[in-house]
């Protein structure tokens, strides 16, 4: 009876056996299951981090804005673009008049600008099938997808702004729209030979697994001491 009381006293910190009284072995097994699941979660996140490291290398990825619902194209099955096309930054990220998109038709353009935008919205690429060189469609596409300027970073891959030289505004000065530290994930990812993120996640996951193992070991030792 005394042993039972001591046992209850020791376990009451995380399990109150006074009320539910699950068997001690059951408690230990439950703790082990939980910790193993969390270890698997850590490993799963490591795998997911490895999967997405190519995405993390792009500093514009974190700052990009998802497309507006109206701009969602009605693509037919099989015409979806690969995932890297989602990294094209859109104009709503660029506040102030300094970065306002410029839509100046070049000489020779026939269609009005509004029509050009409407045509652009028919597809993620903004270039419908059948357009020819010099069509206004291409210009509208280029002017409405400006570049997000992040201090110390370059244009994201996948976006190819082809604004005419005479309409291009200087964007060399860093925009004040970013926070300190924003885009640092890309720096981390690009570090250590492009494996910075993987190393970071691996080290963190291993640290957490060690803590979980220590907890599991402690639960086992408590059980063995009885």
């Amino acid at each position: 009876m005394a042993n039972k009381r001591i046992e209850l006293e020791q376990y009451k910190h995380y399990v109150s056996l006074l009320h539910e009284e699950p068997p001690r072995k059951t408690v230990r097994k439950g703790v082990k299951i939980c910790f193993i699941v969390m270890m698997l979660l850590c490993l799963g996140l490591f795998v997911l981090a490895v999967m997405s490291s190519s995405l993390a290398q792009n500093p514009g990825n974190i700052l990009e804005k998802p497309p507006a619902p109206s701009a969602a194209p009605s693509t037919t099955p099989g015409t979806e673009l690969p995932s890297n096309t989602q990294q094209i930054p859109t104009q709503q990220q660029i506040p102030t008049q300094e970065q306002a998109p410029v839509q100046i038709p070049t000489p020779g353009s026939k269609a009005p600008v509004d029509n050009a935008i409407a045509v652009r919205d028919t597809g993620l690429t903004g270039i419908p099938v059948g357009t020819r060189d010099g069509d206004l469609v291409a210009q509208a596409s280029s002017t409405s997808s400006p570049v997000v300027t992040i201090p110390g970073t370059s244009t994201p891959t996948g976006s190819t702004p082809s604004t005419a030289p005479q309409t291009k505004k200087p964007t060399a000065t860093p925009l004040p729209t970013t926070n300190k530290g924003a885009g640092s994930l890309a720096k981390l990812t690009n570090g250590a030979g492009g494996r910075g993120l993987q190393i970071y996640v691996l080290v963190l996951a291993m640290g957490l697994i060690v803590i979980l193992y220590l907890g599991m070991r402690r639960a086992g030792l408590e059980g063995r001491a009885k």
Partner: protein
Amino acid sequence: MKANVIVFEALTFILFLIFYQGASRAMGKARHRGFFIGALLFSLAIQTAAVWGGVMNFYWYQLNTYYKHYPLGGYIIWLGLVPLAACLIWYMVAATCQMLGALLLPKAKIWSRSAVAGAIAVGFYALIEPVAVTNHWWTFNLKSFYIIDIPLVALFAVFGSVFIFNAIYELTVLQQRDMKALKKFEDRTIKRIAFKSNKYAKNLNWTQLEWLFLFRLIIGLVAFAVYITPVIAIFWAVANRGQIPPGW
């Protein structure tokens, strides 16, 4: 390659089912049920407030027209503005940290154990957040300092939420204590209205204790708001400006 959110969601659901069984054994069925419901509601309230406040969003996968571009779609189950998977992750992290705190520091005070639990939770979220943000499972729109694209406020929030939740759980469910500062308030509110008595927590039956736990979680939410508001305000004042212009 992109880790679609459906992969994260499926992983979370599968692990949750196993974790739930394990935690039921470790904590006891009734206690664990209380913990689970409390954690789900607590995290849901905080994340919903964050979405409402424009701090955090699941926008990328909220747009049906957008996520259809993904071959596997977006989040499947939503609890209002927040996906269920995000709440389940928080619950699993909080439960694990509670057990770890109790196992590693069995003789420490409740506050110390809860602080350790909060610190471990920050470690978990430091692992989860970069992957989440990279793949747009959720994103932040907050004027703050960022470490590997995680706003520092988010890490403070994880620490505070897990700390407060675990402290309330241990105080109410495990140790069945009354707090002097709250005793009068509880006597006048929940105990008088729902229990029709002014019994101490240790003298309540299990159902009453569960209700007291949920009531204290509401107080915990207020405490969390009191804690996080100055943190947000300070970072807001010091940092440059929002990472992404508001309004989307």
